[in-house]
């Protein structure tokens, strides 16, 4: 059987993985939770982020963390373009939120297919010093790449939360999410705010993609799918619209997954996550950290 030290190791490993789930879910939470638009292509934006890292690192030899900034900007722009094409024309129509599901599904198919044309279905990864350097504290080891991803994850979540609370545009984003008509009445340019929210959400997905790619050796056109599912679970688990909740939900899911595999086996890893997820939905439909909707 495994010794206690091994459990501690796994607790740390899976808490870190959970933190990364939080990061991958952050962009989705912003778009889905705050903007109330379903972004089906979330995982694919993550995938584009991964490829951005792969190509900038292998072609130009730059540091993957600089690639993260590049991906944030690049994906932010792609996100805005997507918003103009696929979200803004439908979001205010009756049934608009369901429509965003369909239009972003189209975007998802386009992105995956383009990735197949351009980069082939073969899984790739790139070598970097961060995943080959290890931190060891009290016998618990983790790669620098994973530690950085975890720290960036928490930092981004705090930054986004503060941005929404303190910065003028952030406040406008919240206003739009709470009451678009009211926001318009007080002079907020609602379409512009939505455009920026979507751009920010997709940019964060791109950045998350880069950070994941530093330690997870699976950059391929369908790579977004795994993280996509995790992101959806995390966002619903946390509760729509909560930003801090995402990190806790991510860690809970990561640790559940890790310990589930020890108690049962790896074949159960997804099953266990969904069991916990369903339990939360039954007992707290608003999510762990969400506020219950009131009928008005």
């Amino acid at each position, binding site marked *: *059987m*495994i*010794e206690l030290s*091994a459990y501690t*190791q*796994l607790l740390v*490993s*899976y808490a870190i*993985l959970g933190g990364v789930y939080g990061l991958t879910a952050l962009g989705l939470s912003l778009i889905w939770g705050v903007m109330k638009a379903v972004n089906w292509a979330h995982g694919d934006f993550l995938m584009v982020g991964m490829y951005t890292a792969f190509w900038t690192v292998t072609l130009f030899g730059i540091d993957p963390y600089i690639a993260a900034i590049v991906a944030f900007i690049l994906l932010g722009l792609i996100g805005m373009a997507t918003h103009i*094409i*696929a979200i803004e*024309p*439908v979001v205010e*129509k*009756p*049934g608009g939120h*369901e*429509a965003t599901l*369909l239009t972003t*599904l*189209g*975007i*998802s*198919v*386009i992105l*995956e*297919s*383009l990735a*197949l*044309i351009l980069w*082939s*279905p*073969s*899984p*790739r*990864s790139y*070598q970097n010093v961060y*995943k*080959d350097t*290890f931190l060891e504290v009290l016998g618990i*080891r*983790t*790669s620098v790449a994973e530690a950085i991803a975890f720290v960036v994850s928490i930092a981004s979540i705090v930054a986004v939360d503060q941005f929404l609370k303190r910065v003028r545009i952030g406040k406008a984003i919240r206003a739009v999410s709470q009451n678009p008509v009211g926001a318009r009445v007080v002079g907020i340019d609602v379409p512009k705010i939505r455009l920026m929210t979507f751009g920010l959400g997709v940019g964060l997905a791109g950045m998350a993609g880069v950070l994941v790619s530093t330690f*997870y*050796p*699976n950059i391929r056109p*369908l790579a977004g*799918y*795994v993280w996509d*599912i*995790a992101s959806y679970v995390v966002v619903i688990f946390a509760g729509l619209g909560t930003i801090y909740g995402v990190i806790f939900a991510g860690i809970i899911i990561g640790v559940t*997954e*890790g310990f589930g*595999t*020890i108690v049962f*086996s*790896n*074949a159960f*890893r*997804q099953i266990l996550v969904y069991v916990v997820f369903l339990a939360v939905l039954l007992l707290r439909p608003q999510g762990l950290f969400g506020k219950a909707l009131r009928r008005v």
Partner: protein
Amino acid sequence: MDTKTWILAIVLLIVGLLVGYFAAGPGQVKTVTTTKMVEKTVTVTKTVASTTSQPAQTTTAPAKKVEVKVGILLPLSGGSAFSGQEDLRGIQLAALHINQSKYPNIKFTMKLVIADTQTKQDVAVTELRRLAQEGVVAIIGAYNSAVTYPSAAEAERIGLPYVVPESVSDKITAQGWKYVFRTCANASKYAYDTLWAMADIAKANGVEVKSVALIYENSDFGVTTTEGLKKYLSKFFPNAKIVHEESYPAEEVTSMDDMVAKLKAENPDIVFHVAYLKDAVLFVQTMKKLNWYPKAYVGAGAGGQTRVEFIQQLGADANYVYTQTEWQPDFLNSKALGKWAWINDDFKKLYGRDMVGSSALNYVGTYVLAVAIQKALDSGANPNDIKAFRKAVRDALETIKIPAGELPLMPWGVDLTVPNHQNPEAAVAMAQILEGKFRVVWPIEFAPVKAVFPAPSWGKR
């Protein structure tokens, strides 16, 4: 939703699907997915020939040559598209060589009709039926065992010969099917040869193996290969215990820390791992992270660890990994197989690199089928009477016996006269990654280098 919304949603979906259609077949191959395209019958020989610098000899072939259609069923899109495309390269090259009369014993022209299984069982069965309507005389396919099995069952039902050059699941040739033939080794044989190789290597290095662990991805490939390992383990390692056994979903696994932690606690001498590329890379990376390495880490079933990308992605960390290998360019340096070097040279001209196991296996499968078709033609069967001709090809396949040395590329022969149509001569060699290269280390008597066993720990590399 109002009309405009619907229109926008539908337009986006259509654009996606259109892009997807073109995406499905990158490289030299035009992927055929729709009825219309299948009807057009892709003459692959031309496609391949036009990419070479040499003039296509197919056009200069005598006009009298009989043309025979062969159906190709491969995953050209979906999860296994990468492997399917590699398989197709091998098949296309074989067809090209046949049509260029590189094999004097084969005198007909082979026309390939390609269908995409999308790595889906139902699609494969539908596509097989369509190929049958197209008038193909036989099928080659379909890479994924889980897809090959139902499509082979359908081929058996409609009386269409089906050659399996690469799918390894035992059950494909365990049904007593009359129309299904496998040229490659089955999963049990892979397992048998893996254990045989490791037992030989351990013995040669004077190490007694006391414990082993079995880790495998949980689809048909992993499960059947591991069943084979368990079946023969006591034969080759009579004193070894299985201290850990675990499967995992290869598509969904985001971390392997738990498995490696368990293994570290049990510390088995040998870890047998049946994996695809991404999970194999992640596993080795995680072993390094948790600072543990067994005496031997063995990629069983010739999956991810046998790919060149495995070494590219892991760099020096890939060293000392054992992997089964169906084929290595190394083989062509041997006396017996040197005469087939021209095949790999042609492959290199087309794709700029050496063949790999899957392209070589599919090349061989296509060659064997061609020999059978020629036999059927020689027996006087009329290729225009499609039903009778399929039967004649089946009968011919059942008489195929090609001794080792006469079969292109491979160090083994083909014998399909056995009742279950499972070629008993197909064997699987063992390679170890040493200094960033796959080196054949078993069979020991043919190996150019000696295996490093036990592997050094991470700190001593």
